[in-house]
């Protein structure tokens, strides 16, 4: 079943899916191939911070300008994926007020609106803040749900004809002298192999950019930077809390639905996939973020995770924090003589649309098409769905009184009916696909109970037969990566319970 298309996009993160939507709105046929599920890379492993650009205003004005401009666009087109919380940049006694003033000036120059708040005003808004803070600057930061954002983009692209192939890897390229003719693809679930022919190829693999380029014998200077994040068991802040200083470790706390996300670090990494969060990183993040919100010291953590940022390096050397968080678009025709091949990498989640626009512009230019981009004008399909926490809670409340079956996940109140509905839509290939699309395993016990129930339900529905304990073990092993670094206090207690269930009662 070989496939023929116009443009092949490799990578199902925000950038790749954004390009898919952009091309589809311009009427250009495309196929997107992704070796995991949507947002398996950095798009799904970040802070969920909807940047105003404030963080980069002083250090990287170009990235800051891109952020605030996209921030305004996404508020219009993707309001249902965004919680408009605002953000505060707080100055602590050990921080310089000179920097704050420089920050205010830089925001003004880059077009980021600010309001300077006194200590009392800041504490009135965010009672958990360190009471010794000197002042706070309010900016239009927010929280964004990357997975919903990517799914919405995919949904619209699909409606306009884009084909998405998940869990499928590109294993080799069919090369000509000055262009790529096609790729050999392998379905990682059933092992099937086939060819995809296209006129143009886009490498949107993020941190995997060099792994893909290697297939074409190419290489770019990409620094991989590991960012570690922690999730608290409850929401401690209503606004994004940033430390008003040059970007450093542990200076952002993002509220996200019912939790807060603490981050981050920037550690050079050689590994794209097999990296771990270490206890010292956890301790560092707690130490730093609790300077802003002291209650973090006493708050239960439910998970640690990390993502790998791909940072494009120009020739000058320097600290990773000083490398621009802006993006890079490489025309391999100009750079390497492969005229139908483009790499897009770097950037921020909040600039995904702009990255997609610039990439699609380049494709159009190569194709000789002059249809302009419209992704900034057209709202994403689900914009009218309830997005506010309160509205969603109301919806849950209604389903509890209705005939929705038992609650599979007691932490996040997921009813059986909701999951069954999702399963009926089909197309889900593995356990992670289901977990990605629900709040299952996102709560306090991190799937310690509900994943067993999910598998039980799959057997009930005859969607699984035999071998489920292998899947269960696989899930628990994956879960362990996020749990192991944060096991003390109540988390350790609960982990003992979980271990006694699976290794004890169930003898897995």
């Amino acid at each position, binding site marked *: 079943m070989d496939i023929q298309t116009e443009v092949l996009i490799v990578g199902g993160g925000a950038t790749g899916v954004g390009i898919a939507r952009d091309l589809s709105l311009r009427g250009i046929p495309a196929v997107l191939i992704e070796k995991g599920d949507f947002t398996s890379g950095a798009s799904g492993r970040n802070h969920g911070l909807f940047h105003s650009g404030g963080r980069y205003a002083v250090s990287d004005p170009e990235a800051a300008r891109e952020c605030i401009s996209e921030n305004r666009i996404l508020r219009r087109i993707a309001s249902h994926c965004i919680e408009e919380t605002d953000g505060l940049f707080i100055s602590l006694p050990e921080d310089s007020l000179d920097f704050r003033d420089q920050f205010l000036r830089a925001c003004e120059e880059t077009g980021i609106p600010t309001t300077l708040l006194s200590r009392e005003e800041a504490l009135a808004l965010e009672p958990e803040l360190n009471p010794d803070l000197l002042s706070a600057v309010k900016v239009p930061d927010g929280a964004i749900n990357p997975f919903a954002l990517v799914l919405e983009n995919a949904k619209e692209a699909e409606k306009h004809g884009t084909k998405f192939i998940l869990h499928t890897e590109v294993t080799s390229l069919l090369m000509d002298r000055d262009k790529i003719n096609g790729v050999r693809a392998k379905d990682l679930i059933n092992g099937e192999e086939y060819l995809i022919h296209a006129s143009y190829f886009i490498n949107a693999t993020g941190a995997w950019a060099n792994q893909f380029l290697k297939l074409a014998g190419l290489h770019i200077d990409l620094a991989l930077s590991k960012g570690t994040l922690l999730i608290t068991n409850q929401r401690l802040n209503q606004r994004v809390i940033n430390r008003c200083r040059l970007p450093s470790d542990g200076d952002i706390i993002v509220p996200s639905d019912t939790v807060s996300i603490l981050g981050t670090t920037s550690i050079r990494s050689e590994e794209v996939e097999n990296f*771990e969060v*270490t*206890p*010292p990183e956890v*301790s560092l993040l*707690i130490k730093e973020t609790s300077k802003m919100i002291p209650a973090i010291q006493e708050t239960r953590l439910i998970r640690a995770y990390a993502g790998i940022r791909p940072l494009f390096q120009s020739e000058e050397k320097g600290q990773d924090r000083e490398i621009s968080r802006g993006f890079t678009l490489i025309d391999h025709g100009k750079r390497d003589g492969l005229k139908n091949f483009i790499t897009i990498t770097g950037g921020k989640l909040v600039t995904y649309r702009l990255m997609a626009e610039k990439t699609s512009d380049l494709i159009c230019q190569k194709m000789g098409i002059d249809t302009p981009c419209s992704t900034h004008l057209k709202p994403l399909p689900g914009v009218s769905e309830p997005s506010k926490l309160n509205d969603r809670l109301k919806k849950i409340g209604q389903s509890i009184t209705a*005939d*929705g*079956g*038992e*609650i*599979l996940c007691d932490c996040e109140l997921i009813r*059986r009916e909701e999951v069954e509905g999702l399963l009926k839509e089909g197309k889900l290939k593995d356990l992670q696909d289901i977990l990605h699309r629900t709040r299952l395993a996102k709560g306090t016990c991190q799937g310690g*109970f509900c994943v*067993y*129930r999910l*598998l*039980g*339900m799959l*057997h*009930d529905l*005859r969607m*699984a*037969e*035999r071998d*489920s*304990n292998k899947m*269960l*073990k696989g899930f*628990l*092993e994956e*879960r*362990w990566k996020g749990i*192991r670094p944060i*096991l*003390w*206090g109540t988390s*350790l*207690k609960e982990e*003992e*319970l979980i*271990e*006694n*269930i*699976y*290794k*004890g*009662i*169930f*003898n*897995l």
Partner: protein
Amino acid sequence: MHFDLIIIGMGLSGLMAAKTASEAGQKILIVGKGMGSLSLFSNTIDLLGTTSQNGKMWDVISRWIEDHPKHPYAKVGMGTSKEALSSFTSLFPPPYSFEAFGDGNCLIPTGAGTLRPTYLVPSTMFAGTNLREGDRLIVGFKGFKDFYADYVADQLSCRGITLSLPEALHQEVTASALARFMERESFRETIGREIKEKLHGETRVGLPALLGVRESWKVKKDLEAIVGAEVFEIPILPPSIPGLRIFNRFKEWLIQRGITFLLGHFISKAILKGKRCEGVHVLNPPVSNFYSADRYILATGRFVGGGLVADEKKIFEPIFNLPVAQPKSREDWFGKSFFDDLSHPVHQAGISTDSSFRAIDEKGEVLLENVWVAGSILADHHSVDEKSREGIEIATGYATAKQAIEHGA
């Protein structure tokens, strides 16, 4: 009020200590925050799961003791361990009795469709052991989310059915509610008949382990009479109804013997003087009482039970602040793999004791002369991986009570 012995902790080890001391005529107070791991994990009595099915249990334990001289079993000794187990089983005369199959472990099916080795099995689980492929039917209930008949049946290569509950008022039913339903004759009639209709020649029928909190033997017998096949229970996710039965049996027996039984109470402070405990403040918010005794047994369990507490840096024992043997830093508490690393070092952390179960410092000096330590809080075992939990609890509960009494004599 003054007692001969105060036992802190109401899990299996504390209850065994209470029974043992009560039989020696002691005046006892037992204080417990909860029911310990009994209400969570204990369905059967594990002694040592590392042994193969064919090994003779006591031979295997004897070798285990030789290989693990610091293990709680080694401190209790073979003879006393056997006595302890007999004392436990004497509390459960037939029909609801605990029995071994042959000399070694038997295999019982679990809620994940796996087989699990264990030593003593309550009579409601007998028919689940030594199954042949295809000869059983697994039965689950719609609306009960902690057991999936098809999941279990698919792993065990047999058939599963899920019944709709006639008496469930709500969409969702809990284990304890189902166990109470089972105690009703009309409920048994209804589900029994439905199972009988759906039987395709299977000779044994497995249900989740909730055949009544009380009179489970009768529940099983009644169902068998209606269905016309043998019925057995399958251990499932917590809470453990079979564990609750063990707790209730001890509780009833101990209260009948006149011991003071304070469930839902915990120790807010222990009063220490030199190397002795002089008394404990027992809190049942908002009421606090002071009790003293000649001797004390600490049987507060591990992390789940609250006997051990971990902060970001270290593990400690909150009541007497006894030293906890533990890995050097938090980085060493857990292995990198959940399953592949055999046992996570944190599970071997605990209180180090001398051979009479009194806590010692690193020089081997006894820290508190009138406090004995029993149960899973002890160091040098990893009961989850060894599958030795109940065995250790029963043996050390019994042994510490004997030691404490002997000491007072």
